[in-house]
């Protein structure tokens, strides 16, 4: 279980997180929604330790994420970045098998390559893609490679940062379905940040809305439409009128 309690983070005078409290039970899929610049990425990166919060605690299974063996901690995570964040100088299979080629999870080259090809197949990519470079792939294919890399070491927890941004609706649907299938079959805990309401409905067990530096509303996805919270209603229906200022 991931638990955030009173998490604060400011960049200069810009107070991005102002006391975030959130709980993500093990094996569930939490989707964080909220407008641009509301601190969704900061929240996600804080859990991973890429950003250090100014105040508050973040625990994983009761253990403070800032303490203990960092490699072992990160070894439990997989992450799909917004732009894929694939390493340009490495072939696709080397990107996917990156974690399997070093550290505690190191495997022989042939075994790592076989796992990479299997994961590429899992996300709907053919074997020949393995020897291409990321720059030779379309945006949708890069996203799938990023997804294959995120699941290559079979992590317990997977983070997805805007998984469908920049993709056409059909490819977005494919990625959403893949994420749902993979999270379910691996039994992983998932945390996704997105603006895309079709992603929310496809991926989420639970939803949390971040606004004004705090979690404005959280609950099961099937209760989201019925909530009377005006912020959530404005956001999920994409209305210009409402308590959230359209020009921020």
């Amino acid at each position, binding site marked *: 279980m991931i638990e955030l309690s009173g998490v604060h983070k400011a960049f200069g005078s810009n107070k991005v997180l102002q006391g975030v409290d959130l709980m993500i039970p093990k094996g569930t899929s939490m989707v964080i929604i909220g407008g641009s610049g509301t601190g969704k990425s900061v929240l996600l*990166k804080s859990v*991973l*330790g*890429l950003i250090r919060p100014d105040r508050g605690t973040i625990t994983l299974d009761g253990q403070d994420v800032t303490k203990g063996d*960092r*490699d072992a901690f*990160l*070894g439990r*995570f*997989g*992450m799909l*970045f*917004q*732009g894929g*964040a*694939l*390493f*340009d*100088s490495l072939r696709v299979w080397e990107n996917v098998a*990156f*974690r399997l080629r*070093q*550290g*505690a999870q190191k495997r022989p080259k042939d075994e790592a390559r076989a796992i990479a090809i299997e994961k590429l197949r899992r996300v709907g990519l053919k074997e020949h893609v393995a020897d291409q470079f990321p720059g030779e792939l379309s945006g949708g294919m890069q996203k799938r490679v990023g997804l294959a*890399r995120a699941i290559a070491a079979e992590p317990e927890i997977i983070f997805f940062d805007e998984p469908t941004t920049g993709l056409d609706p059909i490819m977005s649907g494919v990625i959403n379905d893949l994420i749902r299938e993979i999270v379910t079959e691996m039994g992983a805990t998932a945390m996704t940040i997105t603006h895309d309401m079709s992603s929310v409905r496809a991926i989420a067990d639970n939803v949390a809305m971040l606004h004004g530096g705090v979690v404005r509303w959280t609950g099961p996805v099937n209760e989201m439409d019925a909530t009377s919270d005006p912020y959530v209603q404005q956001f999920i229906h994409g209305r210009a009128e409402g308590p959230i200022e359209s020009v921020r």
Partner: protein
Amino acid sequence: MILTAPLAALGRVVLDALAGIGRIVMFAVQVISHIVRPPFYPREFMTALLQIGWFSLPVVGMTALFTGGALALQIYAGGARYGAEAAVPSITAIGMVRELGPVLGGLMVAARVTSSIAAEIGTMKVTEQIDALTTLSTNPLKYLAVPRVVAAVLVMPVLVAVGDSVGIAGGWLVGINQLGFNSSTYIKNTVSFLQFWDVGSGLVKGAAFGFIIALMGVYHGMNSGRGAQGVGTATKSAVVAASVLILAANFLLTRVFFGS
């Protein structure tokens, strides 16, 4: 208030500059401390060796060739005023191996390599590849900085040695074709005049410049701002910083080696 404002502004500039120097020194210490601690990345190191060393050979060679030729012409023209034309081989050689080989080689490699490292790592930063490395349990400093810095320190003396040789050859070509020197006499004067430390000091300078070249590229790349403008600014700052530091380090090392 009006009188103290310029002083306050000057103070801020000085403090910013000192803070910047402090950050670079801390970064350098971190990089050095990681050099001896595993894991090591031999593939990244070999790639860096190729990129920094092998692919810099043409630019270093061409720079040295023309500089050696021009130096021979200048020394001949200047020496003629005192009837010291015969000093062309020895002064060309000492000028190349002590100063021009390392400094011009360092500046040319800084222009080619520092910019390339800063742009590559800056782009990796803005496309979240550096964050991705961290989430994949890989220390970006170890993976990106250490192989490049070690490769540059090892390969720069080799580039300087090549530059020295080509520069002396440039002087020799001009000497025998344009200034009327006998080929074997020119070579004999060059070889007999040079001492081990003339060449050795240039190679040590090369290693120091290699450290500066790679360190500035990595530091500015890793601290790049957002977007294309951020990467552009990081690249420019890296080349300027590397060039100035090379010239400053050259003065300090020359003073240490030959100041007495």
